[in-house]
C-alpha cells in the first residue's frame, strides 16, 4: 500500500515534464490504481468489520484479488501499447539498460528491497504487540478502548 501510494503520487509528478500530462487512463496506470483500491478495500475490511471468520474470509478474498492484479500490472505494458513505453528490462530483443544505468538500477533495487524488509519486520513487531495487548485486555477482563 505504501509503495503503491508512492508510485501513484511520484509517477504523475515525474510524468508531467516528460509526457506533458499528469495522468492518463493507460493500461499500467489504471491497473496500478485498481491495485491501490484493492489494498484500500483490504485495509478497510480489516479495520471496520467485526473480528471473526467472516472478516478473515472476506479479507483473504480481497487479498487474493490484489495478488492476482500484480502480474496484470507487470504485464500491462507488454499486453497493451498505451502511454507507457515498452519494457526496458526483460523486454526481449533490443531492450536493456546502458551498463552505468544497469548498475544504478541494481543498487536502487537492493536499497528498496532492504527498505521493504525493514518496514515489513517493523510491521510484524507492531502486530505482535497488538496481539499481546488484545490478550492482556482479555486476561484483565477489560473492554479495549474504541480505536478510530
Amino acid at each position, binding site marked *: 500500500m505504501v509503495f503503491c501510494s*508512492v508510485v501513484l503520487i*511520484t509517477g504523475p509528478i*515525474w510524468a508531467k*515534464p516528460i509526457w506533458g500530462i499528469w495522468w492518463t487512463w493507460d493500461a499500467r496506470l489504471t491497473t496500478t490504481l485498481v491495485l491501490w483500491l484493492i489494498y484500500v478495500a483490504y485495509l478497510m475490511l480489516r479495520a471496520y468489520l467485526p473480528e471473526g471468520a467472516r472478516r478473515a474470509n472476506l479479507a483473504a478474498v480481497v487479498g487474493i484479488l490484489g495478488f492476482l492484479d500484480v502480474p496484470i500490472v507487470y504485464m500491462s505494458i507488454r499486453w497493451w501499447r498505451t502511454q507507457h513505453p515498452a519494457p526496458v528490462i526483460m523486454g526481449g530483443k533490443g531492450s536493456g539498460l546502458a551498463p552505468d544505468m544497469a548498475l544504478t538500477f541494481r543498487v536502487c533495487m537492493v536499497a528498496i528491497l532492504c527498505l521493504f524488509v525493514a518496514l515489513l519486520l*517493523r510491521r510484524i513487531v507492531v502486530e505482535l*504487540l*497488538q496481539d499481546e495487548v488484545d490478550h*492482556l485486555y482479555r486476561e*484483565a477482563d477489560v473492554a479495549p478502548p474504541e480505536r478510530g
Partner: protein
Amino acid sequence: MSPDKFLDFLFAGYGAFWTILFGYLGMIFSRQRRLLREVEELRRELSQRKG
C-alpha cells in the same frame, strides 16, 4: 521544458517519496509507542490485582 523546471519536478517527486515514507514511519512508531504503553499499564493492573 527548461532544465530548472525539470529539476523542480524531479525534486518534487523525491519530496513526495520521503514525505510518504517518513509519514508511514511516524505512524508505525507512534502506534508501537502507544501499544507498549498499553502493555505496561495492563501488566501493572494485572499484577496489582494478583498481588
